[in-house]
């Protein structure tokens, strides 16, 4: 195995439920490798299995099938207190009967470090998370954002090989959450520890991660860098879950090395650059990001046409909804230049212009 893999899940399945008739398959043959010093995010809706995968790595649950490897060693059977892996819990799980410093020092103390060593590390950690002056406070005497920092310091203090973060920002308000996103990136950079971050917030995932794994129904659908996930989703769920997307059915007419000719429902044919492998006559779905499309009023030469039904002002952008004869309207987002927006009367016929290179073809 290569040296730079921190954590690997190998064909991991997890089934909950005592009897066969109430079984819930939380993870379904999941395999993934997470590199050393990587900020890796597990992204997906609630119940997709992301927290279960995290708990398997931490050792709070045991896999029904498959193995968890830490730096190449199988740790599936180790109890959590023997794994060099620490967790930042969703609601922090700080010990209410201990002070800030006692919380941070707990793991070190349990590892059997001497009082001086514990005090030194705790001091350094307090500096790291900027909590020096609150070290003797009780947990119920500090704010939510401060509790968050204590939870981070407590999990980082024993210098784990991997830090697991289970939706740690979900309890914070928007402004604090943004601050903590930056803070987390800084901490990861400074400590050089592998972070595995669980969230259902796609924006959080895209802004913070080196790589993202999108999960649904116990499977990993796509792993990649944020821009890959966003621009080149390989699955309808991924395209739909991350950002807004217009979906449109189409049929493959002919295909050569680098391009594919497809027919839209309206009968119009267009050519899109695409990798080979799409058989002729197959049904595909086109995914088009709203911000990759434009509204044009001189509509004749344009492939997609419809009538404008709504115009929604959303600050930086304006959203146009165009009825193109399908069940859901086609959404176009246009940035407002100089805070102004182009006024188009509702009900008028418009065309939608799209750069073919930004269209993603999804096979059903």
């Amino acid at each position, binding site marked *: 195995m290569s040296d730079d893999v921190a954590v690997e899940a190998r064909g991991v399945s997890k089934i909950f439920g005592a009897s066969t008739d109430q079984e819930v398959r939380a993870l379904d043959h999941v395999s993934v490798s997470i590199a050393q010093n990587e900020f890796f995010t597990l992204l997906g809706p609630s119940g997709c299995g992301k927290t279960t995968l995290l708990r398997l790595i931490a050792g709070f649950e045991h896999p029904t099938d498959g*193995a968890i490897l830490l730096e190449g060693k199988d740790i599936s059977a180790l109890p959590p207190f023997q794994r060099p892996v620490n967790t930042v819990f969703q609601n922090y799980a700080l010990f209410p009967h201990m002070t800030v410093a006692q919380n941070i020092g707990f793991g070190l103390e349990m590892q059997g470090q001497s009082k001086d060593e514990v005090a030194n590390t705790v001091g350094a950690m307090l500096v790291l998370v900027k909590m020096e002056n609150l070290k003797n406070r009780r947990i119920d005497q500090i704010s939510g954002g401060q509790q968050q920092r204590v939870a981070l310091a407590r999990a980082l203090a024993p210098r784990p090989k991997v830090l697991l973060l289970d939706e740690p920002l979900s309890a914070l308000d928007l402004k604090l959450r943004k601050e903590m996103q930056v803070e987390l990136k800084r901490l990861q950079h400074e400590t050089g520890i592998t972070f595995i971050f669980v969230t259902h917030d796609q924006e959080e995932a895209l802004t913070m991660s080196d790589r993202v794994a999108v999960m649904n129904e116990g499977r990993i659908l796509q792993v990649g860098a944020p821009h890959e996930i966003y621009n080149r989703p390989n699955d309808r769920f991924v395209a739909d879950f991350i950002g807004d997307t217009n979906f449109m059915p189409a049929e493959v007419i002919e295909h050569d090395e680098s391009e594919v000719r497809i027919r839209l429902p309206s009968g119009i044919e267009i050519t899109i650059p695409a990798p080979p492998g799409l058989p002729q006559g197959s049904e595909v779905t086109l995914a088009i990001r709203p911000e990759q499309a434009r509204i044009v009023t001189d509509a004749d030469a344009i492939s997609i046409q419809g009538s404008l039904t709504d115009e929604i002002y959303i600050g930086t952008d304006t959203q146009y909804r165009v009825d193109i004869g399908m069940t859901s309207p086609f959404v176009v987002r246009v940035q407002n230049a100089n805070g102004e927006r182009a006024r188009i009367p509702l009900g008028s016929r418009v065309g939608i212009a799209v750069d073919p290179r930004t269209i993603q073809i999804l096979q059903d």
Partner: protein
Amino acid sequence: MSAEQDSSTESFESLEAHAYQLEVRRNLLLSTPALIVLFCAASGPLLIMLVFSFLTPGDYGGIKWQFSTEAWFQVAFYRDIFDETVSIADAHLSIFWRSVKLSFLTTLVAFVLGFPTAYFIATRSPETRNLWLFLVTIPFWTNLLIRTFAILEIIRNQGLVNNVLIALGVIDQPLDMLYTDIAILLGMTYVYIPLMILPIYASMERFDFQLVEAAYDLYATRWRVLVRVIVPLVKPGVIAGSILVFVPSLGAYVTPRVLGGGKHLMIGNLIELQFGQGRNWPLGAALSLSLLVIVMVALIFYVRSAQKEGGAHGH
């Protein structure tokens, strides 16, 4: 490679099953010491008492190891010592009847006073609510004998109640309240009313007063709001409170002994007599078990209705 994979799969499944087994064993080990004490000094003796109820009474208390159903027969029937004629045991049955009647009345009075009290506490502001609750909790945990004694003192011929009534000119001779059924009823209500208030309050605490607003909004009168909305929704608390008052009333021993003066017996005193002057241990055992059966029937009724309520709310 694949064979190795399979064997590891098996070990994980057994790992989980093993963890569960360990957990169960730990739970049983933790429970065992308490269960031993409870078996020796609570449940076990009940079984021995069942055996005793089928034995023959000894000449001076205790028993002879001879099988007999006479004790159970004597619970309800009386056999004349000389001519062996059988008649209904009026003495026993009237005591059972008095116990049931007094316990029922106690429950009723406790409800009539306890329900408004629980309602009153539940509608206080959150800060003062705990204080009112505390005022109910204190008598709940103070010595039952002392509270019975307090009632004895105020209803005596020269007690507070008679003195006040005479001073007000309502009566000119003291009322003979002590050593009557009324005294027992008063004492039991006083002693057990916190057991009515607390569960009703617990139900009301969870009660959503928006429902009352909705009922008023839909033209209900105060009385109808009470009968059609509040009472049905706090019914589990009312049932729990009634059982909690009824059961100890039925088995009361101290209150009828102190306030009934040895003349107005309840089942508890009748049982004691079999171990005192009567010295018929098997009969005492049979009477105790009869009381236990009545109590268990009441408890089963309670559990059934609680389950029904729970089911109804589950939907």
